């Protein structure tokens, strides 16, 4: 279970999160919606531990552990995974090498056996197939020259390999056409389980047609302004974010 209490965070001198409370029970998928600038991506980065953001007050507890005391790699080991809105391109690092290094680093830290190269290859091939990822793509440098859809599928592949307890999907739908969106959503849905919680951050309701959340929260000005069931997303699609300080029409 993820428990966020009274979270305040700032970047440089600008306060972005202003007392955010959120609880995501094990096995539930919660969507975070909200207008641009409401603090959705900041929440994602703060959960993953990016040190550009300073947490000035409040707490984040994950499975009883104080997440704020951990550095980013420790959080990954503890089971927090952030699917980036803009995955990084790293020339000179082969995607496959990166995937194996990350998988084995996490396995080792969790006390699991590291995978041999053949075992890892078998695993990655199986997971890649589900996400319609061509294995040749994984021989290229990490995310370099990948299309938007390839990058997002690569993020979900990493989530599948690292087997997190909490998946945070930051605008995973941005830049995807409908076919790519479906593949990514199928990949995410395949990872839903009783033990795994997910936080799906999105500006648009469209993604939530494919990844149906248990709960929907609307963020506004650094706080959760409203919470409800999946129907809330549909309501927002019609009314837009006007009442939450955003533009009158959602796209």
């Amino acid at each position, binding site marked *: 279970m993820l428990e966020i209490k009274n979270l305040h965070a700032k970047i440089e001198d600008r306060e972005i999160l202003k007392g955010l409370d959120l609880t995501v029970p094990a096995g539930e998928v919660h969507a975070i919606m909200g207008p641009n600038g409401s603090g959705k991506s900041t929440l994602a980065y703060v959960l993953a531990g990016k040190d550009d953001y300073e947490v000035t007050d409040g707490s984040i507890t994950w499975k009883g552990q104080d997440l704020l005391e951990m550095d980013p790699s420790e959080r990954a080991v503890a089971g927090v995974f*952030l699917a980036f809105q803009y995955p990084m391109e790293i020339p000179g690092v082969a995607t496959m090498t990166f995937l194996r290094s*990350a998988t084995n680093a996490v396995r080792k830290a969790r006390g699991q056996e590291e995978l041999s190269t053949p075992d890892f290859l078998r695993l990655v091939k199986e997971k890649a197939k589900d996400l319609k990822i061509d294995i040749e793509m994984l021989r290229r440098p990490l995310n370099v020259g990948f299309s938007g859809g390839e990058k997002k599928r690569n993020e979900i592949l990493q989530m599948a390999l690292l087997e997190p307890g909490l998946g945070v999907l930051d605008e995973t739908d941005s830049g995807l056409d409908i076919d790519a969106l479906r593949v990514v959503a199928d990949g995410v849905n395949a990872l839903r389980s009783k033990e795994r919680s997910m936080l799906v951050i999105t500006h648009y309701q469209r993604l939530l047609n494919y990844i149906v959340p248990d709960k929907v929260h609307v963020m506004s000005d650094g706080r959760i302004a409203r919470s409800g069931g999946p129907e809330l997303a549909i309501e927002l699609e019609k009314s837009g974010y006007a009442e939450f300080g955003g533009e009158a029409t959602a796209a």
Partner: protein
Amino acid sequence: MDLSVQQFRSKAEQELLDLYAKAESALPGAANPFVAELRKNAIKTYAGLGLPHRRVEAWKYTDLRARMEEIPPLIAALGASVGEPELEAALGKRVAAFPAYRLVVVEGELRVDLSDMTGLREAGVEVGSLALMLEMPPAWLKETLGQVNPREDDAVLALNTALMTGGVALRLPEGLTLQKPIHTVHLDGTGDPASTFTRNVIVAEEGASATVLESYGTLGMQGLQRNAVTELKLGDKSTIRHIKLQCEAIETIHLNVWTASIAADARYNAFQASFGAALARNQLYVGFDGEGSATDVSGATMIRGKQHCDTTLVVEHRVPACVSRELFKLVLDDEARGIFQGKVIVLPDAQKTDGKQMAQALLLSETAEFDSKPELEIFADDVVCGHGATSGQIDEDLLFYLESRGLPAPQARALLIQAFVGEAFEVVEDEGLREGFAAASAEWLGVAAE
């Protein structure tokens, strides 16, 4: 000898002259008029120049006169005991075990007991100790020695010619493609500080092709001063892949010159990896003498502490339609200082020249320093030439991305650094050697090799 050019001599400058005077009659080839004349002229050139210092433009960042305080005696061949464990310790496991014809120079002397030339002569290659060949130099050596891109302004080169005592001479006959690489190993000794002047000469005749690896490592001598020169003459349609690994002891002064002249339709691929030495100066002089040729000169430097590594490169396009590419990557930590000076000269005849140069440094500390001086001297009007230099720190966003996938910060940093230098290793065609360099960079970073 006209000594009026230089009014004042530093202690070391004088000691180098004394070193020569004392050794002259016993140097290899002393009885051979051609060699004796070559040495005499060279020491005269040196006497006129003295050791280069910061007011000499090409040595602006490396004040050799200030850094060489005294000159230890010439290295003596004491028959240092060297086995595979010593080679592994000196060069790393992969490079020591690199499958190649192997010529091992220890204490300035070619050691037959450590070398493996089985099949090299049978393949048609003329090969031997330069010291021996200097006693009665064959015609091809006489036509090459001291004559590849000759320079009157280089004291390091002049000193080497005056004092050369060891090294390897190699002639690849017309049309020979050597499948197995040649590895020349250069080790110091275990005794007191010493000076060594080694010289390799490589002549590739028309259509010949080979890979030559030069490695420089230590057996434990503290305070070696090495002056190592390789002269290469590439004939028409020949190909030489020339690779260097320098991991000398941390107190070493490593002075190195590679000078190559390239005939028509030939390829010269050079790569240098520098990890060791307190002060390293790598000079490369590459000249195009025939049309339609290409060179790729690249390197990677990884240094820390107070290490200083200077790569100075001159590529001279003398004839039309040649291509030159340079890519140098430097990783600098602590107070290390990396220098790249790259000069591309395009002479009036050298139309259709295509020359590109890039030097990139990754600074791992606030106190590391990178100095870059690209120079283009273009006298032809139909050319494509460019250069670039960057220096920066590790990208924090990339680091966060890797850490967020569970890689602990030191491992994530190492991965990014390896990716940075790895781009330069790509120039090395031999996969085993590329892996050897990747392993050396991993060792430098203190992480396990992939």
